[in-house]
């Protein structure tokens, strides 16, 4: 085991912010990025001149249209930020790998305040180009991976569907049980003005939804949106930040795979799964939230379906609230950054309309799927 140098104690989340968010905002993604960045910087009690580091996923270099609205160089030019360190890229341990990178740079003394950001404008990009499949076909970069999927007519949903089908086979869980991920997210989204889908959803709605790739239905898939979220990572001993509002890192997991990331995270803390008051789990497909729940030992392996059955355990007020802002299923696809933003709001007691009472002490946030994964254990 690697000795823990307590990286996590040297850094905090000092500020969070987000832009206007929604379907087809038809706004310049650089403007959205600036909105989120300035909000987060102000929330931290800082000015843009204080920011000396930038970190993002996936950066401006690779994407389907709309998947990345701004890269590091864009933000430097947009806000006149002078950096001592920066990074942006897609080959990270999950989308929140960009947060992990920032913690390393601050703890290592390269810089003091890193602005991390994630901007998407998929819904507007899709509208400009045409249908969603047309958007996906317009990708000019042929990745090594694509040659093993395209000849068979596979798409992103294929992998969510295969994961869900195999999970149901191994665990004996049912669609009615797993529906609670989508239903819980929608119920919570009703109280989140920034969420994309806020109208009530019933079990009948879920069971009657059209199949995308059996057993994955429409409501098991997250929804593209426009928006930007920014997070400021600062030195824990910085004199400039408001320590009372800062969020602490208890542990980071950045290993390859959900189980390995979770094991690494729990190995870096004395806290236990039973200490978790809130789980903002990656839900790009609903089954991923169940997979993360089990990987993080928040419920026993293959018991996820029975654990969430009926929904009371994972509702606000339950023993393990999830997706309190609507998740990505109903809140919109902010690629892990939405979950992190929501967890910070909950830990600070600032999640109006969906605040967990009493205010949660410990939250876990996860991002990614399969071998692309990371998780953070946070406390106030």
């Amino acid at each position, binding site marked *: 085991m690697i000795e823990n140098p307590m990286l996590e104690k040297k850094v905090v989340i000092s500020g969070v912010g987000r832009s206007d968010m929604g379907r087809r905002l038809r706004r310049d993604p650089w403007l959205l990025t600036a909105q989120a960045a300035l909000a987060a910087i102000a929330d931290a009690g800082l000015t843009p001149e204080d920011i000396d580091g930038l970190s993002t996923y996936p950066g401006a270099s690779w994407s389907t249209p709309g998947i990345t609205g701004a890269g590091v160089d864009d933000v430097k030019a947009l806000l006149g930020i002078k950096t001592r360190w920066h990074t942006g890229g897609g080959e990270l341990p999950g989308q929140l790998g960009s947060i992990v990178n920032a913690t390393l740079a601050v703890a290592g003394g390269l810089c003091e305040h890193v602005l991390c950001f994630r901007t998407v404008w998929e819904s507007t990009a899709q509208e400009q180009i045409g249908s969603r499949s047309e958007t996906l076909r317009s990708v000019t970069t042929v990745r090594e991976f694509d040659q093993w999927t395209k*000849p*068979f*007519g596979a798409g992103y949903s294929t992998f969510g569907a295969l994961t869900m089908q195999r999970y149901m*086979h191994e665990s004996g869980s049912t669609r009615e049980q797993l529906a609670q991920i989508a239903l819980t997210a929608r119920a919570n989204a009703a109280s989140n003005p920034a969420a994309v889908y806020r109208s009530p959803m019933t079990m009948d709605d879920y069971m009657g939804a059209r199949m995308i790739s*059996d057993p994955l239905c429409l409501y098991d898939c997250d929804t593209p949106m426009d928006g930007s979220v920014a997070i400021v990572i600062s030195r824990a001993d910085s004199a400039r930040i408001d320590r009372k509002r800062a969020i602490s890192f208890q542990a980071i997991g950045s290993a390859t795979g959900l189980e390995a990331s979770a094991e690494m995270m729990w190995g870096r803390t004395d806290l236990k799964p039973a200490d978790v008051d809130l789980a903002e789990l990656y839900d790009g497909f609903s089954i991923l939230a169940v997979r993360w729940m089990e990987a993080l030992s928040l419920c026993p392996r293959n018991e996820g379906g029975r654990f969430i059955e009926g929904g009371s355990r994972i509702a606000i007020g339950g023993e393990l609230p999830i997706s309190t802002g609507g998740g990505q299923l109903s809140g919109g696809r902010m690629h892990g950054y939405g979950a992190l933003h929501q967890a910070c709001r909950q830990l600070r007691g600032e999640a109006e309309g969906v605040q967990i009472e009493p205010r949660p002490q410990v939250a876990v946030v996860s991002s990614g799927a399969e071998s692309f994964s990371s998780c953070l254990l946070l406390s106030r």
Partner: protein
Amino acid sequence: MERTAPPLTERTEGFWRSGADGVLRIARCQACGWRLQPPRPVCPKCRGMDIRFEPVSGDGVVHAWTINRYAWNPGMPPPYVLAHVELVEQPGLMLLSNIIGCAPEDVRVGMPVHVTFEQAGEAWIPVFSA
């Protein structure tokens, strides 16, 4: 059905051209015998660099499956079945492929399947039949 042809490269053409004679060939390390899919020039187990395409039986079992309903490719009208097929030669040796020759809703986990090929450009796409 008009499939998207994969690019044929030095690394992969031994796999994609294999079906021309009706035989599936999978990259295999000549030092330790490990089979690699996708093919790569180095064995991840022993780091051996003598990797050659060798015939396999073409027998596999369905590990996971889904009925795709979405038109990802204009040449492939849905519905059709996508599956992870585990080849019998090595545990965990998995191909993402299609299951043909049966009604989509009749596919099951653990179902034995056998390879067959469909041509796309110069490539022979391995698919599996019940």
